[in-house]
């Protein structure tokens, strides 16, 4: 057995040593843990780890196969997202014990804090004492066994799994109910208690989902005359689209859901232009050899940065919202163009990993499809806080897109209308976030960048926090960003435009004296290489394209992504529809579209007089409208409009 003393070495050093011991199959003992965070994080070997004292946050988090024993208490997030193996805690566990459990046996002899087992998918969480507020909150599967009292609102918004309570049930949560208990289930519990030498002589009550809120109660009527943008009607007020919207709501009694982003005319990159008249710029093909577009992002804290052949990425979109075929076409196109692909919510596929050279792995609040093994094979990790299409809200995936396979990957029951939680279980503030980022770094040996995805709302505050919390870069998504499903009013009216977002972000970094310190990848309505150069000139380090890449790959913009019957096979899980999608052909189309960015970015950069795209600056820009001038602080020069018109025709 190897013994490591945390009085002498840091947790980071200890975790490396624990992994080395694990690789050699050697058990480990930790002395003087003194409630320090992240002990054992990222361990994936079948060894025993004995912790002689109390551990802090995320003890045994992001692990698989290992067996932990803690002599005293643990902090928040015990065994976070543990895939298999076991943890035994002799004392108490703090909040969110067993969060996102995916198959481990987690035994706490004392009490557990609030929200134990939040978003767990599988495995067991046993609490020998009392549980606290909202045990089993949004659990999707697995079982929670509480020998003492349940605490308030037990089983709040659970969609699957079982909760067994030996003491009294303080109160039941929303959509949870008492159900009958089968003898076989009791036998299984007794077997578990015996195996961990826990004595209990009381009687259990069983709580499961009541099934009243798993689906939207009334389905939206299918209206063929799509899209239903208010702005696409014939007159401003009470136009046919507005009337249609009211009629539908009169039938279903709730907000409508649709795909895509806002349709409102908003100040955007088309409202700014280049100061210099570049209509005479050389348009020869060799411009690509003369201008540097190479972009590195994410090396700020010593991780291996993403290396992009141009300052462009594929925006995060999930397998689930999109078909596997569409995701593979995006991954392939990203490789062909030498840029990065992003998993979005819902896990990483083997084929996707193989198809993309550089793959960013996104972690969302529901921890759907989240796994230590995929973290360790990702090129970057991204913590999703919110997105431009629906800042502050969780994702939605309607039941007819949740196939058996998607349910299995995500660890959720098939056939529910999945509404992802709007918050992470373990990130309720900037202070918790610091500890979460550290957990990700420990899990991946500090090798890959960790970014944060932010929907543009209070960008100024958010960027300052992101910078202080030590993220390697930010993915900043403006109001024009699209989604596979969200409430129409949220899509249209929540958030601030992409143009305002980048300006606020840049200003925020200036205000804290760290201009340029935190790379910003801007997204939300980026359509062309012209937009990209303007975004970079305003201070972005790169842009990301989502909707436009999908359109390049065959999307017909019908806005019905949420329905799951996408006729071209992109936003569907229906095999008949997906068959229509020609992956190699669409991958090439997306690749060609991305190459149009490359040429435009290079040509404009040279036209502006630079040999490197990262030399463009706001000095190269003017505003074309008073609104854009007010938002960006660029000068408003009406005379420059003509120059811009010429440029647009030149490059298009």
């Amino acid at each position, binding site marked *: 057995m190897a013994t490591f003393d945390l009085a002498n070495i840091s947790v980071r050093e200890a975790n490396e040593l624990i992994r080395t011991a694990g690789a050699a199959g050697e058990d480990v003992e930790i002395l003087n843990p003194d409630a320090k965070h992240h002990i054992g994080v990222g361990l994936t070997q079948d060894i025993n780890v004995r912790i002689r*004292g109390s551990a802090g946050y995320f003890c045994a988090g992001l692990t698989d196969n290992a067996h932990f024993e803690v002599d005293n208490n643990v902090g928040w997030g015990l065994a976070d997202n543990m895939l298999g193996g076991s943890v035994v805690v002799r*004392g108490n566990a703090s909040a969110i014990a067993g969060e996102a459990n995916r198959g481990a046996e987690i035994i706490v002899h004392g009490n557990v804090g609030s929200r134990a087992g939040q978003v767990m998918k599988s495995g067991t969480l046993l609490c020998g004492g009392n549980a606290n507020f909202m045990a089993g909150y949004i659990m999707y599967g697995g079982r929670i066994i509480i020998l003492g009292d349940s605490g308030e609102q037990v089983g709040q918004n659970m969609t699957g799994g079982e909760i067994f309570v030996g003491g009294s049930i303080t109160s039941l949560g929303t959509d949870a109910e008492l159900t009958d208990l089968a003898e076989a289930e009791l036998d299984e519990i007794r077997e578990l208690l015996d195996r961990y030498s826990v004595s209990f002589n009381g009687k259990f009550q069983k709580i499961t989902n009541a099934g009243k809120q798993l689906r939207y109660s009334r389905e939206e009527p299918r209206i063929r005359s799509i899209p239903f943008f208010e702005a696409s009607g014939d007159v401003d007020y009470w136009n046919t689209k507005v009337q249609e919207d009211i009629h539908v709501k009169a039938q279903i009694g709730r907000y409508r859901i649709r795909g895509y982003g806002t349709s409102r005319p908003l100040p955007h990159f088309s409202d700014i232009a280049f100061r210099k008249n570049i209509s005479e710029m050389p348009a020869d093909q060799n411009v690509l050899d003369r201008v540097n577009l190479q972009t590195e992002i994410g090396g700020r804290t010593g991780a291996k940065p993403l290396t992009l052949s141009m300052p462009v990425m594929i925006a995060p979109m999930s397998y689930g919202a999109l078909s596997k075929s569409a995701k593979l076409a995006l991954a392939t196109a990203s490789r062909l163009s030498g840029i990065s692909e992003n998993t979005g919510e819902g896990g990483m596929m083997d084929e996707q990993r193989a198809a993309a050279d550089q793959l960013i792995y996104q972690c969302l609040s529901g921890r759907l499809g989240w796994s230590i093994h995929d973290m360790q094979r990702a090129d970057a990790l991204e913590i999703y806080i919110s997105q431009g299409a629906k800042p502050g809200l969780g994702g939605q995936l309607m039941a007819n897109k949740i196939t058996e396979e998607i349910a299995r990957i995500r660890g959720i029951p098939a056939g529910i209308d999945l509404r992802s939680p709007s918050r992470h279980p373990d990130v*309720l503030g900037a*202070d918790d976030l610091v500890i979460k980022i550290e957990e990700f770094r420990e899990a991946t040996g500090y090798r890959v960048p960790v970014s944060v995805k932010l929907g543009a709302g209070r960008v100024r505050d958010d960027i300052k926090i992101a910078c202080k919390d030590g993220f390697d870069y930010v993915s900043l998504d403006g109001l024009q960003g699209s989604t596979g499903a969200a409430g129409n009013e949220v899509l249209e009216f929540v958030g601030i435009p992409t143009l305002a977002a980048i300006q606020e972000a840049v200003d925020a970094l200036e205000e804290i004296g760290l201009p340029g310190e935190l790379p910003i990848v801007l997204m939300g309505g980026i359509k062309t290489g012209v937009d990209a150069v303007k975004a970079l000139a305003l201070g972005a380090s790169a842009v990301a394209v989502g909707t436009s890449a999908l359109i390049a790959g065959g999307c017909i913009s019908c806005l019905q992504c949420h329905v799951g019957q996408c006729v071209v096979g992109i936003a569907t899980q229906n095999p008949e529809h997906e068959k229509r999608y020609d992956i190699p052909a669409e991958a090439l189309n997306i690749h060609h579209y991305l190459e149009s960015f490359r040429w435009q970015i290079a040509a404009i950069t040279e036209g502006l007089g630079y040999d490197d795209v990262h030399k463009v600056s706001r000095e190269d820009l003017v505003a074309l409208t008073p609104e854009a001038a007010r938002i960006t602080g660029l000068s408003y020069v009406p005379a420059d409009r003509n120059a811009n018109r010429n440029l647009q025709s030149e490059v298009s």
Partner: protein
Amino acid sequence: MCGIAGVMYKGKSIDAEVGEALISMLDGCQHRGPDSTGFALYHACEPGGLRLRFFVGNNGQADVSISRIQDILGEFQAELLKEERVGSTYSIKIRFSGDIQKLAYAMESAAKLVSIGESLDIIKDLGGAHDVDDVYAIKNFTGSHGIGHVRLATESDVAPEASHPFWATGFADVAIVHNGQITNYWKMRRRLEKRGFEFRTDNDSELIAVYLADKLSQNIALKDALRSSIDDLDGTFSFLVSTKDEIGYAKDRLAAKPMVKFESDDLIAIASEEVSLNRLFPGHALNTSEPSPGTFDTWQRST
């Protein structure tokens, strides 16, 4: 967004190493807030005496502020007993028997008042616990109790005056440290402002201090003030409050912010994370407990 810590030694002696303990606890959770660190310390009470500490900065403006402070002392017929300039602050001891709230509001218009009290002294500045200690020699402080805070600024500025602990502007000897966000801040603030209280910052934590001090000044027991605070304040919070003789905590009903406590025959210590409590007892596994959502408690100093 922050980390909080508080300690009260139970023995009759009032020379426990409170400063040293708070430095260790705050250093233990400095990852929760690297921007600034602060301490609310309670000295032995001297009847008739009053301590005031001001932010005056380090530039030429400091002398102007100090002379204004001294003018106001004259206007209020307060006798200056002792003065000291340390770091960016100016600290004085005075003899004063008039209306403390009036004096405090008058002083606030002259300089940024950090704390006022017969016993209370708030010391807060940019940087970590050890940085602040280096300037203000916190570790030399002995007493019976105190609270402290590490801050990660989210919505307001990184500035010494925006740091915690917050005193209740106009009330002596009440300090609070808070982790979380009060969402009905403006509603509650307007309610208190209508009753004549002044606010010196837009920081939601100041509201908690004024709210509690207002209750205390109506002879409501601290425990009862904490009970009503859980009903009246909306949002996420874990906070500690201290007075001359008591410390207490309150925790919101949503259990969104952490808090752990350790109690023995010798002391009660409360912090955001157990790692801070363990700093007081390195190498020992502590029998800690976590206050439940929507709960509060207080501890009285032995006299």
